[in-house]
């Protein structure tokens, strides 16, 4: 007998396990529709690898793993891909998530499965790859990809491999029945794990409330060197860190991984899945799920295909919806209420609990904390739930972190023990999320700061470069001016510079000369173009080309342009003669623009507030009309939803602005 240790705290809630172990595991069969969410595990969602209408066979990959922390999805039975769309999934948020919908053909045809009964012929890496391809993710709780968990960093010495058969939560018996009925497979799976990890000891930890399971495992483990360890029942001894402490007496450091103390843990369900994957080459496409609670007539365990709607499974167990207030996925301690009864079973669905109102009554209102300290006594992580509760209420996040909030395993023992019915775990969950959000925000702020500063630097640099170029040009021009003064020789470059200087000088003396020159040039070039166009037209006519019409319109256009240019020139000359009598035109174009803008601003300022407000209002109305038109068009064309949302928000904003402007107008008119 191996010595077992205890852990701090823990509770003894009513077990309620006997209801669902009276019958052997039943096969749930093939439902009329299977919905497979792309994300059933921690990590990146899988990427779709099939198309709508495609026929798939049982075990075929329908979604590929994306990234290291991800696993693929397989078709649970043969059938046709009916849809790839967002569906409601088993998640407390009630959000939609991308799913692949399969309509089974009833033939249940397997792909060709290549098993490796002699797994010793493969090396560790190949086995891990096999497990990853089979889509095995932790089936006990969070659904962490098993292959990642088993990939131990080189140099880490693993002393103990622990197979977790604790199943400490009330009501759930999925692992219990696996131990009773498939002990051989569990032992075979444990041997594979032992081969991969290479530990000194391989232990299977089981609570002493499952004597049949323990007996079956002991019989199967005869002579294998795998030890079955039983220990007193206490919730939550199935928590990874708690189980490690019970079996080895070692505590996993805060924020650390079990491998740091030389331990690797795997769940019973995952062990069987790994056995199937390696020995039979079958991917993880079904699991054992407990259906229990007083609202089902026959509580029992089912071998159910992943993606089976919960309603189908519940009906198999004699579900009485009128008795059931809410449906819980998982156990009564750590489970959550599913948003809808039609959501699919996923890899982590170990239990469906359909309690009656009497069984799990609506929580009574929370009373004030009386500082009794029962939560601290119950906490398996040796935290101070009471302190954490105060800090969570006061949103003192730094203190929460100082009090090791992140060591909380959210087991719910504190909430259960609380005589004031305070939903303590809920406070911790929310605070954890808030702290993570703040961390993310801070990271983003840091990134924004860096981007802002590098942009600032870039702009300064660009400005400095421009300034340097300007200075260099100026210097060069001065030098040239000096050399031009002394140099008498005529060379084309000097001539060009002289021309440019002359032009500059002309601009400085008055814009009208430049303008005049431009207009004259326009007339000359237009005339030239007209000549060539006419010549081409003549040629085309003589050759009888079919381009005659096009050329004719070209000639007409050029002629019109020439006329316009001549007209402009004439106008300019006229104004010039007038201008010399009247006020002088502004010295250059830029100043003209500035003056124009200033005049406009003055005119605006001269307007009465009411007029201004009216003008603003008119402008806004115009914009609103335009946006509404775009929105209507977008809707009619079936544009992207994002675009429609954006447009709608603009319309709302504009309407707000208009009402503001109307108020202002009213105020201005009253004044």
């Amino acid at each position, binding site marked *: 007998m191996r010595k077992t240790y205890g852990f701090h705290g823990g509770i003894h809630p009513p077990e309620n396990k006997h209801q669902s172990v009276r019958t052997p595991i039943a096969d749930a069969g093939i439902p009329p529709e299977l919905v497979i969410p792309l994300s059933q595990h921690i990590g990146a969602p899988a990427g779709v690898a099939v198309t709508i209408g495609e026929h798939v066979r049982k075990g075929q990959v329908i979604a590929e793993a994306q990234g290291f922390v991800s696993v693929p999805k397989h078709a649970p039975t043969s059938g046709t891909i009916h849809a790839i769309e967002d569906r409601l999934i088993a998640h407390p948020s009630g959000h939609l998530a991308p799913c692949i919908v399969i309509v089974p053909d009833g033939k249940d045809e397997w792909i060709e499965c290549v098993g490796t009964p002699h797994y010793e012929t493969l090396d560790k890496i190949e086995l891990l790859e096999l497990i990853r391809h089979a889509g095995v993710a932790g089936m006990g709780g969070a659904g962490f990809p098993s292959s990642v968990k088993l990939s131990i960093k080189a140099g880490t010495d693993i002393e103990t491999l622990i197979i977790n058969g604790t199943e400490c939560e009330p009501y759930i018996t999925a692992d219990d029945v696996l131990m009773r009925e498939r002990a051989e497979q569990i032992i075979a799976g444990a041997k594979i794990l032992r081969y991969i990890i290479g530990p000194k000891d391989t232990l299977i930890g089981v609570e002493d409330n499952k004597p049949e399971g323990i007996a079956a495992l002991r019989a199967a483990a005869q002579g294998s060197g795998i030890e079955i360890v039983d220990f007193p029942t206490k919730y939550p001894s199935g928590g990874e860190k708690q189980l490690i402490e019970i079996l080895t007496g070692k505590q996993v450091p805060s924020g650390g991984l079990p491998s740091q103390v030389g331990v690797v843990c795997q769940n019973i369900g995952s062990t069987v899945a790994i056995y199937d994957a390696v020995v039979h080459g079958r991917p993880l496409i079904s699991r054992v799920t407990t259906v229990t609670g*007083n609202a089902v007539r026959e509580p029992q365990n089912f071998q159910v295909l992943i993606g089976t709607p919960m309603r189908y499974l519940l009906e198999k167990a004699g579900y009485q919806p009128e008795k059931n207030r809410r449906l819980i996925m998982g*156990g009564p301690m750590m489970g959550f209420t599913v948003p809808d009864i039609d959501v699919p079973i996923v890899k982590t669905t170990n239990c469906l609990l359909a309690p009656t109102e009497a069984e799990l009554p609506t929580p009574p209102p929370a009373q004030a904390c009386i500082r009794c300290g029962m939560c601290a006594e119950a906490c398996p992580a040796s935290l101070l739930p009471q302190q954490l509760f105060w800090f969570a209420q006061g949103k003192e996040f730094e203190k929460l972190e100082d009090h090791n909030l992140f060591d909380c395993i959210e087991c719910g023992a504190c909430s259960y023990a609380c005589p004031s019915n305070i939903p303590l775990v809920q406070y911790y969950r*929310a605070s954890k999320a808030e702290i993570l959000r703040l961390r993310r925000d801070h990271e983003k*702020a840091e990134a924004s700061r860096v981007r802002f500063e590098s942009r600032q630097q870039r702009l300064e640099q660009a400005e400095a470069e421009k300034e340097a170029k300007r200075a260099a040009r100026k210097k060069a021009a001065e030098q040239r001016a000096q050399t031009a003064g002394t140099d008498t020789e005529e060379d084309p470059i000097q001539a060009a510079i002289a021309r440019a200087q002359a032009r500059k000088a002309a601009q400085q003396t008055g814009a009208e000369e430049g303008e005049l020159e431009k207009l004259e040039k326009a007339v000359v070039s237009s005339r030239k173009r007209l000549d060539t166009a006419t010549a081409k037209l003549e040629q085309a006519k003589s050759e009888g080309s079919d381009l005659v019409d096009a050329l004719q319109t070209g000639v007409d256009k050029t002629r019109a342009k020439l006329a316009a240019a001549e007209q402009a020139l004439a106008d300019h000359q006229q104004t010039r003669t007038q201008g010399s009598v009247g006020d002088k035109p502004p010295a250059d174009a830029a100043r003209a623009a500035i003056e124009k803008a200033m005049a406009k601003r003055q005119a605006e300022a001269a307007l009465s507030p009411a007029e201004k407000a009216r003008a603003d209002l008119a402008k806004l109305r115009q914009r609103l009309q335009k946006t509404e038109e775009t929105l209507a068009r977008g809707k009619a064309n079936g544009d992207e939803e994002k675009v429609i949302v954006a447009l709608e928000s603009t319309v709302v904003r504009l309407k707000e602005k208009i009402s503001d402007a109307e108020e202002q107008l009213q105020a201005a008119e009253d004044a």
Partner: protein
Amino acid sequence: MIALLSQYPLFAALLALVGLAAVFGALLGYAAVRFKTEGNPIADEINNILPQTQCGQCGYPGCRPYAEAIANGEDINKCPPGGEAGIQALADLLDVEPLPLDAEHGEAAAAPSVAFIREAECIGCTKCIQACPVDAILGAAKQMHTVIISECTGCDLCVEPCPVDCIDMIPPQETLQSWHWDLPNPVSRRVEVIASDAPRESSPRDRAA
């Protein structure tokens, strides 16, 4: 020499004090040069607290200039994106009374929104690109522009310059990954906390039996 000093104790004391002053003066002078701090450290700390949206609602061109202004005595309540929490953090850092947010500089937004360009309407004028303080808009002249959502700080500065009004600020949509539990409302117990559902005195087993 010693005889002289012992004869004039006042002179000896004076000499000792002058000597000490010279030694410590030299030490302090060296330390001032050797351990000179670069820039203004308090401005750095203030800048760390500011939300780095670079929106300019405070009246300064970015968070860094405002941080420097605060270090020189500017009010701490001019940053709407930082909100009350930001003002509180600044007040704690500077040990001053937290002031209510100055409404003149805008109201604190509920959630930071993200700019979205209706790409079909974009004419490629690059005006928003020039306005963006964190280079979060991608595009070129006469090419469609788009916002890099992960880099957008929601500062609003690109909306005004757009000549065709094709930029909107939309609040980010909650996804499965961004969803999280809310704090329970102490008044109405609408949360579904399963662990504490069954009151101690009437455990499920008693009821079931």
